[in-house]
């Protein structure tokens, strides 16, 4: 079968997951306790998946998956299995046949206050939930974390504050849409932090996959 990039993560559940925003912050504090600093560049998502207690077959399958990325040449979609759905519907699923994709979205001038339209009335988005963005080909992904939640109105409109911003480069994607099911980001492997499978005499193996976001143009 032909591979379509970006690939999905291997379907085995990773036992340890780090999924957070990587920032370049410079801070300095003088003798009076005053703190000053700046932030450099664009904050990007980073994720680290540890697959542990793998059977030989699983370990081999993951190795093949990693090798299919050809180092950092090809992309995959990194997501956080803890946050595949908003916390409020994690156990129940979306109500009323809602597929998870908002009918439209808009952002304010700072690009951090996000208005989602076409949600089920009363859907709660809590701090920590992720909102994803994808283009019409599903190849370009970005996600943002809700840092101040909101509830969808009777008309299905929810306003939340998010971090990092919904970059202008993301909103410029063709046919871009906001979605709440399995939000993720387009990622490239950090090869130096993704060592080969380590197997043990008991037939258990471990594998780590480390990746960083790339924002396609």
């Amino acid at each position, binding site marked *: 079968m032909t591979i379509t990039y970006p690939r999905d993560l291997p379907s085995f559940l990773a036992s340890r997951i780090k999924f957070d925003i990587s920032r*370049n912050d410079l*801070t300095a504090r003088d003798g009076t306790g005053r*703190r*000053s*600093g*700046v*932030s*450099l*560049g*664009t*904050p990007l998502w980073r994720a680290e998946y540890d697959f542990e207690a793998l059977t030989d077959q699983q370990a081999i399958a993951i190795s093949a998956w990693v090798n299919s990325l050809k180092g950092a040449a090809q992309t995959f979609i990194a997501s956080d299995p803890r946050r595949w759905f908003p916390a409020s519907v994690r156990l129940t699923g979306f109500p009323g046949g809602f597929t998870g994709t908002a009918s439209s979205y808009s952002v304010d*001038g*700072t*690009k*951090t206050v996000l208005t989602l339209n076409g949600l089920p009335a009363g859907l709660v988005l809590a701090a920590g939930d992720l909102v994803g963005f994808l283009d019409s080909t599903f190849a370009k992904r970005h996600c943002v974390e809700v840092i101040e939640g909101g509830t969808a109105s009777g008309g299905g409109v929810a306003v939340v504050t998010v971090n*990092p*911003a919904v*970059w*202008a*480069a*993301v909103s*410029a994607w063709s046919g871009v849409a906001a979605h709440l099911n399995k939000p993720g980001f387009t990622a490239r492997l950090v*090869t*130096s932090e993704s060592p080969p499978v380590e197997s043990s005499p008991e037939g258990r193996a471990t594998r780590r996959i480390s990746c960083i976001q*790339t*924002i396609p*143009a």
Partner: protein
Amino acid sequence: MRDISSTVIDLLDEGRVVLHAAYKVEAATTQRVWSGYGNLTVLGETYTGIGATNLVCAITSEVGQAANPVTLSLSGVDPQWIPSAIEEDLRGKIVSIYTLYFDEDGTSLLDTELEFHGTVDQVITAFVPGEEGSADLNFNLESEARGSQRSGGRLAAGQDQRLIGSTDGSMDAISVAPDIVLYWDGAEPKRAAVALK
């Protein structure tokens, strides 16, 4: 002379600024790139985002240093982008590097400052294979303070001063001062320029 807006100064004071950088090479095809993602309009011109955060720290400067050269290193740049950056001879082409001050969300461009203005001296590409590999594009830049085609240091001389005022001999002694040989305390005699360095 910098003219940073008071809004940005207040935000800098509070540590609420995100820095980006942009640079422009005025070659046959003018290259304009910035360290973020997507297109950005800076001073009426469109810059292409190359996602190179390390572009931000390109410059070190010291007060009183007139002609610090600058090495602009773009490591981790998408190798696909490099050929288009070096496909023509860039030596001597004018380079401008700007610091871009964004708000804390990194989305609103508040101020743009010209950080460096000079010319390209050398462009070096380096591809390092392997797990720690990288694709680097290094621009060695000369500051405009370097002067046209001059590469060595030069002292103001009496002749220069006399061009300004034909009767002004105040620099005559200064220009020969480094060549005066000093004999100190049994040490090997040295030119003043060396002994007093």
